[in-house]
């Protein structure tokens, strides 16, 4: 493949890469040669790179990541275990839907983070408080996406199974569950974002370790390069998780022309 064709195909990637490289270079050049750097308010890529190397080679960063991950995984797992069945039951039994829908919709629409101070004070500043907050924020996308998935099952397919004499169990295993999986994965993608907010807010509010705490502490002590390192690492993790979910959605459900609103 000649150079021109290769560039054209991966145009999006190359333009993006150039954009980032140019941005970083301009940033570095301006702050080194044009404006003097006031280390309390500004920093530049070279300093960030140094801090990044130090942190990666040190132990604190990994410890912080481990602490935050632990709380996130606990909270997220419970969100999956509780959220999906609730969504399934809501989709399955109309009365359950009628009873739970207004209440859960109101909760979903509200900034549940507002309860963070209360959670931290009741559950303490350790894993439990943070995990509870993550659970509270992450459970709703699972409930509502699973519910939407069940309700959107093509009724024609249900008739097909029925016409072959299939029972309720067959209906669930062969049509409703497979049909719902893409929705659940989309829900997982949303839940990841919301769960991360929970971890960060929890750690900003009252913690002594964790990546969120590290960022806010770096801010308090005016160590800008360290703060940027924390932000970049968190951002990287968030992007990787979210893009992984998107790819998963596409693999599991290639038949859905999903052009979506992020």
């Amino acid at each position, binding site marked *: 493949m000649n150079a021109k064709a290769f560039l054209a195909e991966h145009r*999006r990637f190359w*333009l*993006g*890469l*150039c*954009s980032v490289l140019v941005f970083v270079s301009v940033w570095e050049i301006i702050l080194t040669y044009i404006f003097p750097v006031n280390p309390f*308010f500004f920093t530049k890529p070279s300093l960030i790179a140094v801090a990044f190397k130090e942190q990666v080679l040190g132990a604190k960063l990994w410890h912080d990541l481990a602490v935050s991950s632990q709380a996130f995984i606990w909270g997220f797992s419970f969100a999956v275990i509780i959220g999906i069945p609730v969504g399934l039951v809501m989709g399955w039994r109309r*009365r359950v839907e*009628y*009873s*739970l*829908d*207004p*209440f859960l919709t*109101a*909760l979903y*629409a*509200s*900034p549940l*983070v*507002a309860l*963070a*101070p*209360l959670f*931290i*004070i*009741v559950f303490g500043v350790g894993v439990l408080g943070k995990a509870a907050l993550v659970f509270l924020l992450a459970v709703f996308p699972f409930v*509502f*996406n699973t519910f*939407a998935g069940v309700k959107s099952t093509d009724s024609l397919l249900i008739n097909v199974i029925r016409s072959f004499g299939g029972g309720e169990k067959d209906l669930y295993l062969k049509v409703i569950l497979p049909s719902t999986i893409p929705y659940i994965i*989309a*829900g997982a993608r*949303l839940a990841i*974002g919301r769960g*991360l*907010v929970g971890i*960060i*807010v929890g750690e*900003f*509010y009252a913690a002594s370790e964790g990546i*969120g705490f590290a*960022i*806010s502490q*770096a*801010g*308090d002590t*005016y160590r800008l390069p360290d*703060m940027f390192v*924390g*932000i970049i690492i*968190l*951002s990287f993790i*968030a*992007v990787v*998780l979210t*893009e992984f979910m998107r790819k998963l959605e596409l693999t599991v459900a290639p038949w859905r022309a999903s*052009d*979506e*609103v*992020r």
Partner: protein
Amino acid sequence: MKPEKLFAEHESFILGTGFILVLIAVWESIPLWYTLPRGMALFFTTPSKIAVAFSQLLLDGTIEKHFWVSAIAFLAGLGLSIVVGLPLGLIMGRSSTLEDLLDPYITAANATPRIVFLPLLILWFGIGIWSKILIVFAGAVFPLLINTYVGVKNVNRVLVNVVRSFGANEWQLMKIVVLPNSVPYIIAGLRLAIGRAILGVVVGEFFGSSQGLGYMIASAATNYKVDVVFVGVAIFMALSVILTLAVKHLESRLVSWRPETAKTF
């Protein structure tokens, strides 16, 4: 016959409100049948106490004072995100080069919880209204921006060609075809943006402010005034629900021909 028929017709409403009322009643009655251990009792409150606290705070003007502080930050931040997000989204939708150039930043910023930038903002702008407005802006601008440019990109090619064949220039194209077609996406984006904006106000006021409803919640929590915490949470909940319903109503009014692909999650 009548009561059964009445129930059947309004079944969803009755079950929905009934459930909420039952929950409130159970909550209220907990102290009656369960004595909490000493430690827990400090953190416990009941709906009636919350209502009492609410009326007190309302009467002495505390709520009003904090509400307006929050409202200003919310409106300013949301307004800024509309002013920046909408035009940028329109241009990005029409120029795939621009879209490709900006894509890495948008993908990264959209996936990252914007809250993470709060310490940086506080460092630069101090504890005050600006760090709040900017965090609200940072949260709200992305759904608006992204939905706008997805809406623009999804414009029906055939319609564009039709209008072009009559000799329309880029500006006329925008006005006649692209904009109307994007409206459902933009409104959906607005709905998401409002949710994020409220989130931004809450978190911004937890850490970066000495006034506002979020501050009220945080300081009440520190002083173990749990009923005040719930008053604040309830106000935010009510605001969220009202605003979201208002936008949903707007959505259904404006968009009866809505294209199937504008998803709502």
